[in-house]
């Protein structure tokens, strides 16, 4: 390998090395496709058998035919919905702060913390929500779970919002400011609408990420095989992700089949949201209006 200075006899060997390495790169690419295909095909094959009317309308039965996951479907909608309601305004506003006012030392600290927060294991965030809410209110609740999920969404939304808003050309801001529009109106009426599709994409990706989260929910909503508590501030709740964990570990094959059905539904929701996010962003990327 040491001679690349026109040693004709070494050329064949160098060419071969190039071929070998190129082939290896192709194999690596294939290595990304195999597990994804395997997982999706396997989940669909196993999950399809569980999908019947009872799967969507029934409650989990640990004995017998396994029942359904109605409570998990409702719980996922409630908890992820609540988390989105809490996480999106905070995340987007923090992103606006970083992009528009964050070019100083405090902004650097916030940016660094947001980056670091995305790397904190979700179970640690679950411990925080447990200590803050479950311990203080005296019980597991859907609210505690959605706070944990919101905390997982916030740094992701903050950073994507900041990056997208920074892509908005300064000429657009200057045009608005030049017309005498105040700065806050320029941000809310001109800059944010211009970056909206990108922000929505970031939000959808964050929602998709937390919809599949399980670990923090074990510590905050506990899980239940009965209808979820109607009071979001008190009483155990459950989600599809938590049901996959709890039903998938049961000895009865019928119950495990229900877990596969839940896995298929969850994968459908999460991948569907991710794909939707991509489509929105491609359809209308950042541009002036």
């Amino acid at each position: 390998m040491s001679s690349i200075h026109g040693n004709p006899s070494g050329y064949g060997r160098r060419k071969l090395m190039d071929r070998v390495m190129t082939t290896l790169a192709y194999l690596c690419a294939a290595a990304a496709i195999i597990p994804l295909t395997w997982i999706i095909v396997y989940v669909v094959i196993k999950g399809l058998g569980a999908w019947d009317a009872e799967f969507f309308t029934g409650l989990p039965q640990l004995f017998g035919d396994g029942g359904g996951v109605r409570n998990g479907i409702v719980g996922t909608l409630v908890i992820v919905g609540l988390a989105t309601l809490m996480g999106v305004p905070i995340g987007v506003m923090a992103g606006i702060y970083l992009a528009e006012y964050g070019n100083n030392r405090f902004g650097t600290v916030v940016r660094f913390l947001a980056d670091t927060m995305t790397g904190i294991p979700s179970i640690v965030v679950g411990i925080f929500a447990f200590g803050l809410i479950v311990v203080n209110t005296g019980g597991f609740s859907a609210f505690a779970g959605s706070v944990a999920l919101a905390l997982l969404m916030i740094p992701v939304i903050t950073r994507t919002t900041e990056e997208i808003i920074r892509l908005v050309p300064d000429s657009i801001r200057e045009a608005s400011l030049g017309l005498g529009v105040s700065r806050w109106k320029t941000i809310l009426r001109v800059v944010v609408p211009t970056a909206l599709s990108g922000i929505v994409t970031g939000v959808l990706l964050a929602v998709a990420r937390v919809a599949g989260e399980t670990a923090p929910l074990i510590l905050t909503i506990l899980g239940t095989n009965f209808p979820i508590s109607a009071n979001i501030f008190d009483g155990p709740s459950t989600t599809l992700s938590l049901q996959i964990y709890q039903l998938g570990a049961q000895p009865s094959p019928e119950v495990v089949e229900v877990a596969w059905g839940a896995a298929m539904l969850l994968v459908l929701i999460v991948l569907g949201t991710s794909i939707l996010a991509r489509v929105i962003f491609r359809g209308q990327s950042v541009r002036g209006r």
Partner: protein
Amino acid sequence: MGFFKGLRRGHTTDTVFAGVALLFGLFIVLIMGGIIYQLWLQSSVARQEFGWGVLTSSEYNPGAEEYGALSFIYGTLVTAALAILIAGPIGVGIAAYLVEIAPERVNRVLGFIVELLAAVPSIVYGLWGFFALAPFLRDYVVPPLQGVLGWTPLFSGTFFGATVFTASIVLAIMILPTVAAVSRDVLRAVPRDQREGMLALGATRWETFQRAVLPYAMNGVLGAVILGLGRAAGETMAVTFIIGNKPELFTSLFAQGATLASQIAGQFPEAGGVTLSFLILLGLILFVITILINICARLVVRLVSRVPKGGVRA
């Protein structure tokens, strides 16, 4: 303070909006502080009871009041290291393929597939790992491996399915997108001049990559790998489902183990009192480990914008 100056000058709404935005920025700092405070507070019982000795003791038997965290720290570090050993080279290989070889259209499709791989929920990886991958490994991978390397302690013992080996492979698949995506961005940032200069000297594509591209992007690639390591260390659900959850200083990859995260998730529903406080102490240890890894990764990545090795920047 600009805030009060703004109020006096009459840009009231502007200043209020800036203040509100600042509050939300402050919120991020508060969350981080809150996480650290809660971990410290909730683990106080365990910290006072066991002291620093908890870090060096591997005995874990709540029935006999023995609480050691070492086997969990060991399990976390070993599985994460194994995962990155597998996912590191493959992830960089994918990035190299995407940046240096793939045509634009393939690039977009494969990039999308890698993104989807990152979107699959952790617990689904766990279910798949337990019911699909583990039997596959048992029937087709472990027998030949043991045939050749069975005499080493690393590959000895009976393979039960839910093992350190299975967990590490699933972890590797899960962090592959992180390593690949970050490395791709880093390789993409290498200027074209680097490649063209090398190609003009008559180098092959591999030689160009090895001598002109990779040294230039080395810090970033290293950062990507460390970031993947952090992800692997904190991963919970998949590992909880497939590692067997046995607190032990295992020597064989075919043994069962436990990680910090898997122990918290697995034992939490039944825990109370000292055991609960101990689990949260494990969370504190996990937090410190992942934060250190992450800060390390970000510092290394940041170095990439400074004088890169082998660069032609003036």
